[in-house]
């Protein structure tokens, strides 16, 4: 548990849901190692965050809401066929039994039909939700692809060469647009070691300030990758250089290895 200290300061924000993706991934990777102390701290922080619900002023919903809810709940309770108490005395005429039987058959049919309709509605909703998710995903990918193209084509984007520490190694290129973000591209990039990833860092100009963690990179089978950072952790003016280092799977809040590739932001 030697790494616990570096994660402790993230735990409250994690429970609150305020961590940025890289830090959240790093903390979750640490929790996945089975760290009991941090898991306990997360549990306590979650409790603390639940208490924030009380800071919202209480308010009364409309009576109509309760009416709608109770109507649905009663209908569902009925359709699931709650056991009913039947009269125990047998002094009931045959015609009444026949009526009860007919009513029972009708009730069973109604319950079955309601359930069938509910299932059909649920299936249709699921299909619609699935299609909506796929469309949203495709739209998001299109938006990201458009943004990448805009950054790469725009003349005001600043070109940054990220040179390999090894003179024979590949050279990466980044383009940074002050409003739209950074695109980093590479070819023939060697795969990171097992259980490791490549991670992008923004190195601030301000003396003594730690490198800011950014996204993780995994080249494809041909060693190629294109990475879009739409929300860089630092502005271009405040950034001295970009660097890429090999880090443990899940990323790290700060560099644990020397950079493999780096380049100054001019």
């Amino acid at each position, binding site marked *: 548990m030697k790494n616990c200290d570096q994660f402790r300061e993230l735990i*409250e924000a994690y429970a609150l849901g305020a961590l940025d993706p890289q830090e959240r991934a790093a903390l979750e990777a640490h929790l996945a190692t089975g760290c009991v102390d941090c898991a306990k701290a997360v549990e306590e922080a979650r409790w603390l965050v639940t208490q924030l619900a009380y800071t919202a002023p209480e308010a009364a919903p409309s009576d109509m809401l309760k009416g709608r809810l*109770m109507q649905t709940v009663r209908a569902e309770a009925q359709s699931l066929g709650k056991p009913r108490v039947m009269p125990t005395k047998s002094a009931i005429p045959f015609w009444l039994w026949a009526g009860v039987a007919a009513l029972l058959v009708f009730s069973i049919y109604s319950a079955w039909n309601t359930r069938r309709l509910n299932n059909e509605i649920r299936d249709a909703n699921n299909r619609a939700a699935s299609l909506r998710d796929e469309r949203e995903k495709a739209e998001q990918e299109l938006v990201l692809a458009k943004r990448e193209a805009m950054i790469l084509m725009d003349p005001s984007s600043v070109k940054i060469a990220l040179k390999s520490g090894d003179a024979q190694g590949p050279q990466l290129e980044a383009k940074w647009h002050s409003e739209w973000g950074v695109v980093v591209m590479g070819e023939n990039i060697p795969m990171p070691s097992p259980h490791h990833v490549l991670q992008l860092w923004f190195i601030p100009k301000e003396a003594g300030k730690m490198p800011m963690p950014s996204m993780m990179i995994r080249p494809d089978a041909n060693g190629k990758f294109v990475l879009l950072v739409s929300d860089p952790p630092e502005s271009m003016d405040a950034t001295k250089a970009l660097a890429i280092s090999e880090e443990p799977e899940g990323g790290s809040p700060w560099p644990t290895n020397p950079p493999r590739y780096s380049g100054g932001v001019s």
Partner: protein
Amino acid sequence: MLLAAFTSTGPREVPPDATLLSLLLQRDVSAFEQLYDRHARLVYGLVLRILQQASTSEEVVQDVFLQLWRNADQYDASRGPFVPWLCTMARNRALDHLRLKSERQRRREDLPEELPTIVVAPEYEKALDEKRRAERVRALMASLTPQQKKAIELAYFEGLSHSEIAATLKEPLGTVKSWIRNGLLRLKEGLQATT
């Protein structure tokens, strides 16, 4: 018999949430109604604070309580108290609506139908009624600095991340992180001290 009915109207025992929830498993509509009457104001207040719109908030509250009705078996009273679980479900639902509404990219991987984790009450926490619990948390929150309070509220009620809060408040990222962490630690200390 009528007289007996009148004479037996002493103070009625209020069943605890856990009892009502076990009745919910038997599809007891009356238990559901009691749970709704007991907690609807808190849940609706929370959702309304997040969404700021009454009609959408009522839709979300309806979803939350229907989910409770349909999935009561997924709540295990032995693992933690009910109200935090219910409020977490309401907050997750409301934030999902907020994010869809603003067409922001969804950061949560939670599926809409997924129920929240049951949170265990820490050892320092002791049983308080909802009213006292609310008063205590509100007083502690009021004791934070305005910056700490604002940053925590943006994260909790608007679902913003550190970076998004820094951009909203136009403050350095590190400063925002400190406000949130120090504010929450102060709240925790306050809760420990008042129990």
